[in-house]
């Protein structure tokens, strides 16, 4: 068992390290392109429609509306779609948009889900470009001047932006905040270098309407419609650009339980999207995208298998130790006292693990520096980042179980 485990450990380590090295290399090569600014040189501002689906957003939606009012872009309309809200969302929207002709409110009594709301909004939209955003997210005023110019390239169908966390309070929020900085901002940019962007994040993304129509809009059956549409955009051989300089601030679920529910939806949705578009995997027709996605999910599955087998080995050793203790009246203290530090006791596999840990922190700190994040203010998140390693496995595990179990995944 140990020999098989060790060979597998080295194999997964190699693949994971290759992936990280590749990303670091691309960051280095594309360091100038990371912060590229595409000049806004349209003679006239192209018309943009912003669709904001809302479900029970009372108390939050007014902040979103206020941020929209500050947007520095004149040729724009904001379409708020209440998706059968049962609280005071409708009243709050009406009060806050009163007298502002840029706002349109669709107060639908029926609940169609997020994708259905977006499609309804698209049907009403007059804009050449369609921006979608979450009702609990806040965009910066100049976001359209930064993102719209990317559409000068006719092959660009969508532009993603940096997704950052607004006011992280709890420990988990502080840890996840860093994951957003690295995963939903820097890495998306790196993926865009080789047209490998596999998600147009829900908090804010902007699309070319003609392409949305061509590919049939958002899939109402998907619980991760922002990922599913990205796959279809790639399938139709369009590009998804990423503007790291444009930012949207979103809020994270406040409790660990709610974070778990959100992640389970994301990851289950990711699996179902992958299954739906399995024909894209390792398919040269779709360029590097199919290979990157395959490699991504291969790593996730192998990582999960490695994690479970490590957990099994660790747990069985722990059980053995506890069973040993029963013959010495559970004298744990003297056992702990006998632990000695001898670096020669480090096996190659342990060195591998320690280096991986150091490597993770190196990547994290590098990413934060590139993203111009004040590291001194993120100490808790940085130290706690190690938790992410375990949480990822947990989230993927419960999501796979859910998908295999065939349970219906709800959007909320």
């Amino acid at each position, binding site marked *: 068992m140990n020999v098989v485990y060790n060979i597998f450990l080295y194999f997964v380590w190699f693949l994971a390290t290759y992936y990280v090295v590749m990303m670091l*290399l691309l960051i280095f090569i594309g360091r100038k392109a990371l912060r590229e600014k595409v000049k806004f040189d349209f003679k006239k501002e192209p018309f943009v429609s912003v669709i904001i689906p809302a479900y029970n957003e009372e108390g939050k939606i007014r902040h979103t509306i206020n941020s929209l009012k500050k947007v520095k872009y004149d040729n724009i309309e904001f379409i708020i779609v209440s998706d059968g809200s049962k609280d005071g969302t409708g009243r709050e929207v009406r009060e806050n948009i009163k007298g502002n002709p840029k706002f349109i409110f669709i107060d639908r009594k029926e609940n169609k889900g997020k994708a259905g709301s977006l499609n309804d909004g698209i049907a009403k939209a007059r804009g050449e470009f369609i921006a979608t955003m979450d009702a609990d997210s806040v965009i910066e005023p100049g976001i359209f001047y930064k993102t719209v110019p990317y559409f000068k390239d006719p092959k660009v169908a969508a532009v993603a932006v940096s997704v950052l966390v607004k006011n992280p309070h709890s420990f988990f929020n502080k840890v996840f905040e860093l994951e957003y900085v690295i995963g939903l901002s820097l890495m998306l940019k790196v993926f865009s270098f080789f047209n490998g962007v596999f998600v147009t994040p829900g908090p804010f993304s902007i699309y070319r309407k003609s392409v949305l129509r061509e590919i049939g809009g958002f899939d109402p059956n998907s619980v991760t419609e922002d990922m599913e549409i990205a796959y279809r955009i790639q399938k139709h051989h369009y590009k998804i650009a990423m503007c790291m300089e444009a930012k949207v601030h979103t809020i994270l679920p406040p409790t660990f339980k709610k974070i778990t529910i959100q992640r389970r939806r994301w990851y289950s949705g990711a699996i179902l999207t992958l299954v739906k578009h399995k024909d894209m995997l390792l398919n040269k027709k779709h360029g590097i995208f199919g290979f990157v996605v395959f490699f991504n999910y291969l790593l996730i599955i192998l990582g999960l298998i490695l994690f479970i087998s490590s957990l099994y080995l660790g747990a069985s050793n722990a059980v053995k130790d506890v069973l040993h203790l029963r013959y010495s*009246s559970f004298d744990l203290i003297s056992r702990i006292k006998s632990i000695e530090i001898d670096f020669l006791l480090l096996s*190659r596999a342990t060195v*591998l693990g320690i280096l991986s840990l150091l490597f993770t922190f190196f990547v994290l700190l590098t990413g934060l520096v590139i993203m111009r994040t004040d590291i001194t203010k993120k100490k808790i998140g940085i130290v706690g980042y190690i938790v992410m390693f375990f949480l990822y496995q947990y989230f993927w595990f419960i999501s796979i179980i859910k998908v295999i179990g065939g349970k219906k995944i709800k959007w909320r």
Partner: protein
Amino acid sequence: MEIKKSVFLIAFLITAFLLITILFLGNILNSQRKTAVEDKMTIISDLNDVQTYSLLSSVYGEKLACLAFNSKLAAWDQTLWKLGVKLEQYRVATEEFAKDPFYLQQKTTFNENEVLYMAFLTKAKKECNLSQTVISFYYKKAEVCPKCDDQSFVLSDIKRELGDGVSIFSYDDDLNITSISLLQKYYDIKEYPCVVINEKPFCGIRDKSFIESRINI
């Protein structure tokens, strides 16, 4: 931005370099462990003196045996125990993919000399009225004898607590050492794990309190 295919190759080469570095580091650790074991094993050459002391004591009587024990041999007990523990720990840390013959060889040499030392210690104990408790522990590999691990754990605890008051010798039956087989026949050991406390065999797992009660008799 156009990504050249060579980037994938460079990333592969960097990763391969990192892996080779780790394997190289692992080899350095392995060789350092072996050097450390070899350094510690020099005590074995000192144990050859035991034969001389044994011969001298049979010619010149118990007084010389006691002199020899008190002057030098008593100090070896603790060193031997630590060496045994290290040998096992380093073997476990080294063997990731295959059994290392180095440790098998060292363990064999170590066990053979343990027998020698134990014999002299038992003799000195009788002739010099030492209060030292001598325990020999006979075991097989964990796959065949899962309880052997438990017994080893208990004995480690006892050694840690009682220190010089007890001398424990662990004998691996799987090494097929003639002197150990002889001792097993002498004590009629057919079941594992088996501990011999002050020349009385107790086969089957024995807990800490049982062994402590036997030590105090």
